[in-house]
């Protein structure tokens, strides 16, 4: 346990020193604040809780931005240290390989959690200070959004680690990271939409569609936030979808957690067999 914390703490300190933490936190805060103010402007006079609108905007922001940050942070984690020669020395110490991998992952996940909580928290504080009435249900939805964002970031960090242990070259790892982002964040939904249109509802039923959506962590995240809370789905335009989705919030969270654990476990197995 101590070893894990030592390695994680080193990773966090590295993040602080090379300004990763500051840069991501500022970026998240700036985008979150912009979205919460601009996104609320059209509905401001209607008198509904603007938090829901902010949640919808921030969820979309998370889906695009957080995977990118997570992958950029993690693709170099293993292959880069092997390349620079720091891994040889580290592994000659009394540490197991899985401890190195999990420790570094915990450090990177902590950086993402810190940036997300602080960045999105700033938007929450701004909303609270703007004086509008915000119910406890809305705050719960907001907190759930932040929590699931961290989980999504962790899932893509884990995938970045997998890419990083899979290959022997930093450039290849970077390429795989970009491909993961393109496929899961951009192309997957388009392909799914195309499939639905082409199929015309003949073979793809609701059950299969749910399965396909769960096979992508970004979609699991979207479903969790946009259909999980009734007040939010009204604003997201997904109220109809929410009625169709038979997947409970806890299942969606479990799927996200699985997307953290599975790539990490695979990376740990690959790394333990690696001949440095």
């Amino acid at each position: 346990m101590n070893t894990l914390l030592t390695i994680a703490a080193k990773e966090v300190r590295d993040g602080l020193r090379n300004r990763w933490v500051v840069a991501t936190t500022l970026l998240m805060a700036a985008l979150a604040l912009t979205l919460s103010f601009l996104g609320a402007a059209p509905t401001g006079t209607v008198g509904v809780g603007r938090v829901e609108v902010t949640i919808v905007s921030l969820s979309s922001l998370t889906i695009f931005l957080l995977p990118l940050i997570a992958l950029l942070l993690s693709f170099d984690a293993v292959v880069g240290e092997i390349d620079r020669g720091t891994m040889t020395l580290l592994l000659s110490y009394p540490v197991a390989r899985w401890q190195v991998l999990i420790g570094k992952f915990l450090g990177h996940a902590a950086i993402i959690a810190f940036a997300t909580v602080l960045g999105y928290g700033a938007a929450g504080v701004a909303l609270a200070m703007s004086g509008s009435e915000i119910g406890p249900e809305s705050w719960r939805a907001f907190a759930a959004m932040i929590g699931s964002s961290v989980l999504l970031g962790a899932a893509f960090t884990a995938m970045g680690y997998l890419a990083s242990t899979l290959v022997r070259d930093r450039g290849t790892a970077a390429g795989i990271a970009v491909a993961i982002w393109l496929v899961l964040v951009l192309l997957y939904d388009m392909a799914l939409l195309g499939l639905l249109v082409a199929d015309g509802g003949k073979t793809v039923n609701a059950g299969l569609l749910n399965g396909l959506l769960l096979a992508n962590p970004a979609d699991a995240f979207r479903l969790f936030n946009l259909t999980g809370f009734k007040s939010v789905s009204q604003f997201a335009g997904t109220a109809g979808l929410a009625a169709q989705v038979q997947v409970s919030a806890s299942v969606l969270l479990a799927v996200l957690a699985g997307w953290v654990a599975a790539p990490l476990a695979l990376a740990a197995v690959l790394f333990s067999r690696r001949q440095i």
Partner: protein
Amino acid sequence: MTDTATIRVEGVSKRYGDAFAVREVDLDLAAGECVAMVGHNGAGKSSLIKLMLGLTTPTAGSVRVLGGDPASAAASHIRRQVGFLPESVAFHPSMTGRETLDFYARLKRVPRDGNDALFERVGLEPAAVKRRVGTYSKGMRQRLALAQALLGGPKVLFLDEPTTGLDPALRQSFYEIVRDLRDAGTTVLLCSHALTELEGQADRVVVMNRGRKVADGSLATLRGLAQLPVRIRLTRPSGEVVETACANDDKVATLRRIACEGPELADIEVVQPSLDEMYAHFLRREAAE
């Protein structure tokens, strides 16, 4: 010697793809022994050290370090007693010298209050310790590398090309530390290209070539094996220099003959074959086979 062996390598081969990095090497190292391993780049020195560190597993044969398999899951207690100074050592540039040593001390579960003494021992100034490693010169990085290798008083110490890029004064203090460790019972395995500086430092020399061990023994034993001629340089009173050569076994007889029967001399110089020459000889013999 078998009882005190801290490292035992038996019939070890290591293959990467089609290429053998190490072939059928047998090697025993005892406590309190300083062994130099010499060879070209790619002769298998670093590969052998990685096997002994348990970073890689042998394709064939077995490696035992301090009585256990260094690559097994239970190797933690072995690694706590092993120090390693890698070739072209790299540290995280954003950490200071002190943070770096603290980090490694925590991983080795060694109390950190001994770190100041370690810094002093390797000659890193307190001012340098507070600076980031990224600003260090090669010599300072190498001192820090030695400091981390000495953490916890290792029973086995691997030094891979430890003195490349060090100035002569630093080299001397470096070998002084190595000597102290050896006298305290540490097994030291030293890899180097710089053969001349190993003379007088190592109790034993292991010559590697293309993954094979081609020679193993003390400098004197290797000299006997190589049977390289000893050169005798004679200076006449007039300043004229004459050089002659003889076999190592005939050295004393030849010198006596020269002294008793030869012409008047101002100086006699006996030049033993250097480690460099012996190394070249073993490689030639290996190539001829």
